[in-house]
């Protein structure tokens, strides 16, 4: 019992339940708790860029050889493409079969397009070349200051490759980056101490602000989306994982902390550092985890992909816009591109959706307003699917590289509680820690 109370996932789960109760019974109080959730997400985000930097750099510096790096990158991108394409298709199919918007008969002229003006203007922005140019930082420090993940990855790859080429010429720098990485993960361990508080606030806010009423109003869409996500995780990701030699349920149990934090904060970034550590512990190869996982947060957003096609189909149905097979394929093709560039812009999914609808033409962009109210609820499933998708992708790529320690992975998966206890021990901040000798 005592061990249970000390484990993070139990605390997070209890906090989420408590938050939901507060939000349901005292909506005003629940909404007022938003700063707790926001504060926690800010705490994590503040060191995401440096964490990605140190992880990618140490991963690459340890790989040795550009050929291997190129191979890992290539395999990762192929995996991402396959997974997101399947996810996009699944969204279309779910939309066609379940028809969540049928019979709503919304007249788009009556919708208030002002609420989404910010998204539609941003949606027009990026062409492919602009997107590619945007990956190169204007200035290295600026990339870190703006928290631009793709730019940080780009610079980190260059930095890591240069370090690898220098071999013994830069051991001090490699040691420094490793120390920095240890420091940042230690800070993250401290931050995770308040994860239950953040989850409590975020869940109370979500239920308090949006309540069960919104859930019912667009219930069919929400049900369709959650169903599609569940199907994707169980079937597509499950099969992928089986290929790699592992079972999905054990894998999900292994990631329960990360899953709960993601669910609670509806932000998949808040669990990125934890996910990377867990994957490395599982036996995935270092370069894959350090390089492919951050990259996956931009290019392997499977939950977002399902949402994008499903939402497009939903808006078309709700506004009674007929879309034939040709139009459906067009939406699908455009989203193949826009869903990738979405990562480069904040507010991601919504902007990509606006851009897609604009490009397709006959589906009214104003239909987006229908989705604003439930976006937070959709984002729970989106973030969760993204998180699990990235975990599975890292395992798959490691396996493909022949670098998955399968015996170890199986042992870890069948012994989750022990791993968690060890993690808790390592992350514990000893209040009476001995003073480091250096300053005496």
């Amino acid at each position, binding site marked *: 019992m005592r061990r249970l109370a000390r484990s993070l996932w139990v605390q997070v789960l209890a906090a989420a339940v408590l938050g939901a109760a507060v939000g349901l019974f005292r909506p005003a109080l629940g909404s007022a708790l938003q*700063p707790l959730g*926001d*504060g926690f997400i*800010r*705490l994590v*985000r*503040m*060191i*995401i*860029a*440096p964490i990605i930097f140190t992880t990618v750099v140490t991963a690459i510096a340890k790989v040795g050889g550009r050929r291997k790096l190129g191979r890992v990158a290539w395999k990762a991108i192929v995996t991402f493409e396959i997974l997101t394409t399947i996810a996009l298709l699944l969204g279309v199919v779910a939309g066609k079969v379940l028809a969540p918007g049928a019979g709503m008969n919304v007249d788009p002229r009556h919708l208030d397009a002002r609420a989404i003006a910010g998204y539609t203007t941003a949606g027009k922005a990026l062409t492919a070349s602009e997107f590619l140019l945007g990956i190169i930082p204007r200035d290295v*420090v*600026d990339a*870190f*200051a*703006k*928290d631009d993940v793709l730019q940080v990855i780009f610079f980190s790859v260059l930095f890591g490759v240069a370090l690898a080429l220098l071999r013994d010429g830069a051991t*001090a720098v490699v*040691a*420094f980056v490793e*120390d*920095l990485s*240890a*420091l940042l993960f*230690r*800070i993250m361990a*401290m*931050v995770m101490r308040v994860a239950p508080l953040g989850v409590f606030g975020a869940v109370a806010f979500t239920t308090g602000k949006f309540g069960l009423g919104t859930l019912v109003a667009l219930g069919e869409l929400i049900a369709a989306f959650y169903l599609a996500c569940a199907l994707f995780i169980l079937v597509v990701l499950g099969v992928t994982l089986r290929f790699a030699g592992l079972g999905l349920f054990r894998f999900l149990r292994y990631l329960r902390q990360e899953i709960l934090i993601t669910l609670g904060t509806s932000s998949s970034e808040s669990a990125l550092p934890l996910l990377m550590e867990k994957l490395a512990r599982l036996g995935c190869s270092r370069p894959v985890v350090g390089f492919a996982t951050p990259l996956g947060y931009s290019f392997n957003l499977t939950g977002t992909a399902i949402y994008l096609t499903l939402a497009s189909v939903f808006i078309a149905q709700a506004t009674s816009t007929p879309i034939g097979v040709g139009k459906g394929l067009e939406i699908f093709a455009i989203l193949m591109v826009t869903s990738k560039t979405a990562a480069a812009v904040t507010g991601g999914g919504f902007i990509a959706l606006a851009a897609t609808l604009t490009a397709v033409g006959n589906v009214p962009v104003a239909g987006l307003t229908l989705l604003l109210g439930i976006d937070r609820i959709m984002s729970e499933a989106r973030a969760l699917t993204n998180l699990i998708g990235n975990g599975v992708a890292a395992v798959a790529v490691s396996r493909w590289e022949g670098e998955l320690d399968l015996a170890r992975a199986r042992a870890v998966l069948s012994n989750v509680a022990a791993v968690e206890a060890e993690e808790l021990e390592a992350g514990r*901040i*000893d*209040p*009476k*820690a*001995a*003073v*480091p*000798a*250096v*300053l*005496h």
Partner: protein
Amino acid sequence: MKRLAHSLYAQVLIAVLAGAILGQLDPSLGTAMRPLGEGFIKLVKMLIAPIVFTTVVTGIAKMGDLRKVGRVGLKAIVYFEVLTTLALAIGLAVGKVVRPGAGMNVNAATLDKSAIASYTTAGHSMSTADFLLNIIPKDVVDAFARGDILQVLFFSVLCGVALAALRDDGVRLLHLIDEFSHVLFRIIAIIMRVAPLGAFGAMAFTVGKYGIATLLSLGKLMAAFYATSALFVLIVLGGVLRWTGLGMFRFLRYIREEIFIVLGTSSSESALPLLMSKMERLGCSKPVVGLVVPMGYSFNLDGTSIYLTLATLFIAQATNTPVSFGQELEILGVLLLTSKGAAAVTGGGFITLAATLSAVGNIPVAGLTLLLGVDRFMSEARAITNLIGNGVASVVVSKWERELDVERARAVLANVTAVEAEEYAAGRVEPDATVPTLPPAATVGGSSTGIAHRP
């Protein structure tokens, strides 16, 4: 004579006087000296964020105890609250007794509000939750890039505690940060060489632009504020300092360099790094100084507090707005909150004042225009009082934590010139210093750097 010329405080004092004379004799030339002052303040400000970071991280890693960090932080906040509340109350009392604005009979409707428009719009300040959320950086690098002291302080505390928890794994990094700190303070020592130039330029600008004449126009207010600040320093801060076992006059003498630099530049931040190293030298514990001084620059603005209540009453009196006792308490209550929020916004005091007047309601915000002309002169006394208040705060919190080496502090205070000479020699930049040669590769990372490096 040679020793005098070698001492920074004498140079700064002479520069301030020269600047004032130039500004008075040739106002346009004096005003043109402004870039000198601004340049100097920029030189110091560019280093404040990294200096706070390195000092706090090494200080806390040395303390090594999260509970202790919390205790020091809490004690500092309690002390800040007590002192600033006292300062606010004193400003209010003086305003009531001296009545500096009585008889001015200003009609608020005829005042030109456009000059203060930017302050009043910024004055719609943020909520407590926003303020607290804003202490967490959006991104660490961004916090440093924008020089946001509270955000940098927050991250530094986390880093320091994490480093302490890493123990031996963090030794290399701690070592690096410690060396980095030495480099930064050495840069400050180089910059301080031009402090006289900066003080000269800023003073020439102040006097040239605003002139001694403005001093006379609102003479009663100026006199009331300067006298109150002086009394606050001598009696309140002096009394607190006496409790720790030190004397105020010796303490003031000890930080005379910092006082003159602040006087010259009318910016208390320009002396922050110097104040931190001086307080450590005095015998205050390093982690306490690292936490208290940067925090104090946001939360312990004694001079600003006195000014805020005094100025509020002044505007009410000048515009013949009656203020009841209940309203006085309201002003005090509102300022207790707004004066803390001021730290997060630039232009601090004036915006706070605008926000407070709007909140209280019946005192015309337009009355702020009366103060625009003298604000620079007011800010001299404000900045000096803030500076001294933060110095005293480090001594008091150190003492409270039983980490003040009183013997040492007394010895240092009794021997200010020797300390300054030593500081001067240490900060001296030898133009023909030998270029450091790199040690052979094998010893890099070893104990050749002078700090004990135990495995």
